[in-house]
């Protein structure tokens, strides 16, 4: 995979998106023990490049469905940071008005359609949106992010079959981080090559290394071109490592369940660090630009937390307000 295939603006934007996701995640982790965010968080540290490279290939109107580990998807698609941090603080100004919490992010203005905390729940929804696009011939595509464990749910197979039969414009993105909570993929699946499953439904598949931004970007691009071409769905499996525990900050019990060789291999290869070095080596970025980008992000994050802290809580008398549409 060759960096020269990608234009400079894109490369820089990818850097900024990935760094922003990273920094937001680290800040949440840092402050989580203060208990101001009274909602479970599932950090995507280590997996940032997947959301970034997929979304870089999407238009603002294209649809994305996310899952419980959805902060990166939301930010990469362009979701409003203030509204996200406010949602983590369960405030009325949150993107879900404090009704959803960390696992239910939404920003319809950028096509981020919402996320389900039922593992695999968002998959058929994304296919349904693609069906709608096919009916309306609006040229948009639909993308759904889900984990390796979500691929064990029957509904993925039902969804793939229907998308294939109807040639719907949907991209299935499986983020394989090898774990479901404490459970390793090999205890749950005999064939660990998840792309074997979509192949069985006639869906073209791609595999990307989620540590390698260039690889992930170019593979995403190919997959998305296929989907946009109107020939039907595609499937991409992106491997990456979940740097932290399943939920919350840190990973207290990591020695009790991680495979240590795997841990070494993956933790020693930070997607952001690797990418930064690559960009510096290729003179795409300078240390100075990097500093500027990152300090802007820091400012923005500070503002978002201020915004969240100052925002009002939902009103108790509005408990039932959004039950009906």
């Amino acid at each position, binding site marked *: 995979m060759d960096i020269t295939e990608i234009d400079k603006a894109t490369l820089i934007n990818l850097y900024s998106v990935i760094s922003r996701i990273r920094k937001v995640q680290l800040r949440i982790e840092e402050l989580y023990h203060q208990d101001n965010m009274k909602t479970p968080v599932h950090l995507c540290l280590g997996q940032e490049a997947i959301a970034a490279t997929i979304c870089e290939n999407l238009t603002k109107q294209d*649809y994305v*469905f996310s899952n419980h580990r959805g902060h990166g998807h939301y930010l990469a698609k362009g979701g409003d940071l203030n509204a996200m941090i406010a949602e983590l603080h369960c405030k009325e100004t*949150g*993107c*879900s*008005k*404090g*009704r*959803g919490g960390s696992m*239910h992010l*939404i920003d*319809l203005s950028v096509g981020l*359609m*919402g996320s*389900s905390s*039922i593992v695999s*729940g968002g*998959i*058929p*929804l*994304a*296919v*349904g*949106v*693609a*069906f*709608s*696009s096919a*009916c309306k011939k609006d040229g948009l595509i*639909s993308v759904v992010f889900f984990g390796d464990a979500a691929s064990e749910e*029957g*509904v993925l*197979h*039902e*969804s793939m*079959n*229907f998308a294939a*039969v109807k040639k719907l414009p949907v991209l299935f993105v499986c983020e394989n981080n090898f774990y479901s909570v404490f459970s390793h993929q090999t205890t749950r699946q005999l064939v660990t090559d998840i792309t074997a499953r979509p192949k069985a439904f006639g869906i073209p598949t791609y595999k990307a290394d989620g540590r390698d931004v260039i690889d992930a970007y170019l593979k995403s691009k190919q997959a998305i071109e296929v989907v946009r071409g109107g020939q039907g769905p595609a499937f991409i499996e992106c491997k990456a490592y979940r740097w932290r525990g399943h939920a919350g900050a840190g990973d207290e019990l990591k020695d009790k369940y991680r495979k240590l060789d795997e841990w070494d291999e993956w933790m020693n290869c930070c997607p952001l660090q690797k990418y930064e070095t690559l960009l510096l080596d290729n003179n795409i970025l300078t240390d100075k630009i990097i500093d500027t980008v990152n300090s802007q992000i820091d400012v923005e994050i500070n503002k978002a937390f201020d915004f969240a802290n100052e925002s009002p809580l939902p009103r108790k008398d509005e408990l039932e*307000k*959004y*039950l*009906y*549409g």
Partner: protein
Amino acid sequence: MPWTKFLIDKTEPGFDEHADQEDRKLTFSEAMREGLDQSLARDENVYVMGQGVDDPSGMFGITVDLHKQYGSERVFDTPLSENGLTGIAVGSAIAGMRPVYLHNRPDFLMLAMDQIINHAAKWSYMFGGQSTVPLVIMAVIGRGWGSAAQHSQSLHGLFMHIPGLRLVMPSTAYDAKGLLTASIADNNPVIFIMHRWLFKHSSFVPEELYSIPLGKGVVRRKGKDVTIVAISYMVIEAMRAAEELEKDGYDVEIIDSRTLLPLDEEIILDSIKKTGRLIVADTDWVTAGASAEISAMVADKGFEYLKMPIKRVGWPNSHVPGSYVLEEAFYPGVDDIVSSVKEIVK
């Protein structure tokens, strides 16, 4: 062979709230088909899917030939993937479509409970009202001909428990079309349950599209001795029971709930204010079902009017048996209603 035909052709006396209107008598299934047809014509976001909706028998006639009129993109058969297809319908609804998803039996909805309960019912709330799910899920309660435990359930009691859903159970052709229109027009997921034994019942059905508001019951018969709240097919049984009881001097009031979510509590309480007695008749298990809810609601809000215990007429603590003799023992009907009335009146 007989069984499908047998039940569809079963022509029992239905009743007609506009008996004086001579023209435009349609059967329940004709009314449903007309409503779907007109809804498809009216709004291009409406589409109809389900196993067999485009087949020659067309879902008991409800969808027959609609695919020829509207094309196989708007009226189409589905793979056997109830949970996936429900989620797909929900997703399309989020994106602005108005899917109508038909099932032969409520039993098959059990495969789709995750998408119905965890997703469709919650999507609006969970995101602070930003998305809506205008989706209609239909199913037909089977009955008779030894279809047994896995093909004869009603199960609407389950749906009534879930906030965010609408639950609609029409008993006449007129209501079927009007409630269908309202269901398709509603911005929330609607569970629309029909009873197969109603399909050949006919009544006056206006030609134009009309809508009956969700949440409004109707008094099917006025009386002062006892109130029967009846659901779906049990309205028919209650009407028959009332006729029989009339001979013995009992004056029965019958309320057709029409929708269970929302439930028209007012019409029920108003009636009980007058009669002081309540029987709830349902096509489902009584335990923790719709009849329990209606009874509990009255035991709270209508207690002061109540003169006698509230009786529930519904399914006993058994699965639906295969054998027709056991079916006879299983299904409550006119006799059970009659004896319940006699138990609490006088």
